[in-house]
C-alpha cells in the first residue's frame, strides 16, 4: 500500500528555483530504490510559502528543498521514514 505522499510545488516561484530538477531527481530516486509501490509523487501549483522554495511536503509536513541537495533530502526524509 502506498503510504507516503510527496508533493512538490511546481508553481512559478518554485519553478524558477528548480522544482523540475527536484521532481525529476525524486522520481529517479524512487525508481532506483524500488519505492514505486510505496510512494506517490504529486505536483501542486503553489503551497503559499514561495520564499522557502522549492517547497515539498511529505504527508502534509512541509520542507524546503534546494535543487542541489535532493539526494540528502531523500535519504533523510524519505528513505529513513519509509516502512
Amino acid at each position: 500500500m502506498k503510504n507516503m505522499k510527496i508533493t512538490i510545488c511546481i508553481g512559478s516561484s518554485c519553478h524558477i528555483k528548480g522544482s523540475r530538477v527536484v521532481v525529476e531527481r525524486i522520481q529517479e530516486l524512487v525508481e532506483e530504490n524500488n519505492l514505486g509501490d510505496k510512494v506517490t509523487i504529486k505536483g501542486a501549483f503553489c503551497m503559499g510559502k514561495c520564499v522557502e522554495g522549492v517547497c515539498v511536503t511529505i504527508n502534509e509536513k512541509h520542507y524546503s528543498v534546494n535543487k542541489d541537495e535532493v539526494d540528502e533530502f531523500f535519504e533523510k526524509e524519505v528513505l529513513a521514514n519509509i516502512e
Partner: protein
Amino acid sequence: MKIRKFDTKVQHLKYKVLREVARHAWAGDLLEKVTDIPEIIVPGNTATMRCCVYKERAILSKRVKLAMGGDTENKNVIEVISIACDECPMGGYEVTNACRGCLAHRCEDVCKFGALTFDEQQKAHIDKSKCKECGACSKVCPYSAITHHKRPCQSACKIKAISMDENKAAKIDDEKCISCGACVYQCPFGAISDKSYILDAIDIIKNSENNTKYKVYAVVAPSISSQFTYAKLGQVVTGIKKLGAYTTVEAALGADMVAMEESKELVEKGFLTSSCCPGFVRYVEKNFPDMKENISHNLSPMARIAKYIKETDESAKIIFIGPCTAKKAEIQLDKVKPYVDVVLTFEELQALFDSRDIDITTLEEGVLDNASYYGRIFARCGGLSDAVVEALKEQNIDDFEVKGISCDGIEECKIALIKKNKNLIDVNFIEGMACNGGCIGGAGCLTHGAKDKSEVDKYGMQAYEKTIKGAVGVFKSNENK
C-alpha cells in the same frame, strides 16, 4: 482617463458598465442598485453619445444585462444590442459627386463584370445587379470618387454571419457564428457585445472565503504579455492575487503539453488542423465536416492546463483570463466544461481591478513562469507551428516532415481549408487562428497594437525553460499516481 488603457471609447464605455456591476456585486447590493447603474454612468441631462440621455440610458441598461450574463435563452456568447445599432448604410460601392466625368474611364476598364455605365455627362454609375463588390473601380479612380458603404460589423465578419433584421438592425446567424468577436471590436457604436461572466467569477472568489473552502486558480493566456502595457506583467499577477485568486498559472504550460501531444498526433494521422483556437475549430466543424476527423483531438491549452490543475487539486476552481470571446463558448462544450469554471477577457480583468480600486502600477511584482518559449509564442500566429516542429525535434522524431501553413485570421483559414480540401496545396498541418495576428488580435484585448507580436516574442524569450520538454518535465509528478 490618465492612462490610455483601451483602443476605443466603445471599450471604455463597456468597461465602465462592467466596473459598476462588479462594484455592486462585491458589495452584495447589485440587485437593489442594478437599475441605478445607467444613471451613474450617464448623469445629468446632456447627451454625449446619442440623441438624448434617455436613449443612452436605455442602451446602458442593455449593456448592464450583458455584463450580468445577457440573454440566457440565447446560447451564443455574442449578442446584438438592437437599439444601439445605428443602422449604418449598406449600399455597397457607390459613385459620389466627386466623379468628374473624365475621359479615361479607368473604372469601366477595370470592372470585369460590366457593372459601370455612364450618363450624358460622362458620370459613372454602378449597376448593383452586376457589381460583385470587388472594389477594383474604387481603387483606380483618380478622384477617389467611388466609396464603399458596408457595415463595419459585416466587413468584420468574414464568415458572413451578420445580416440585417426587419428593422435594419444587425442580426447574427447564431448557427454560423464562431463567436470570435471581430464584430464586437469593430462596431463603432458598440452595438454588438460579448456576454460577460464576471458575476460568476466574483461568486467563485467570494465563496472560496479567501481560498479556504477551495482554491481559485487564475489561468492566463500568453497574450497577456502584450496587454496592460501601463504596468509590469508581474504587477498584473499580483493584482490577480489581490482580486482573490490563490495563484496564477500560465495557459502557455498547457500549450507546451499540447505541442508535445499534437505533434505525435500529426505523425500518426498524417494531416492535422490545430485545436487551440475555438473559433477556428467551430469553423472547420461547421463548414468542412469532412475534415472533422483531422481536427486535433487534443484539448486546447486552456483546457489542458485546467485539467492538470484539477488533477493536482480536486476542488480547484479555474478562472481563465484571455483575449478571447470564443473561449466563453468553448467552456460550454461537454469536453471542456469539467475543467474551466469561467472565462474572463482582459477587458473584464481591467474592470475587476478597478472595481476593487486595485491600481496595479503600485503593486510589487509577482512571479509568473511555468511555460517554455514555445508555449508562450502560441499567442501569435505562427507560434503553434514553430512549437510543433520543435516538439518533434525534441522527441527525436526526424522521419516526418512538417509542411505547415499558419493562417492569420479566419479568411486565410478558409482559403487554406478550401485548397486542402481540393488537394491544391501540399500541407500536412494547418494552424488556424480566427483573429488577425492570432490571439493577440482577440476581441477581448485591451489594446491591439503593432508591437504586440514582438512583446509576445520577448516574453517567450524570458521563459526560464528553453525547451518544451523542460517545461513539461514537471508533469512527471502526476504520471505515477
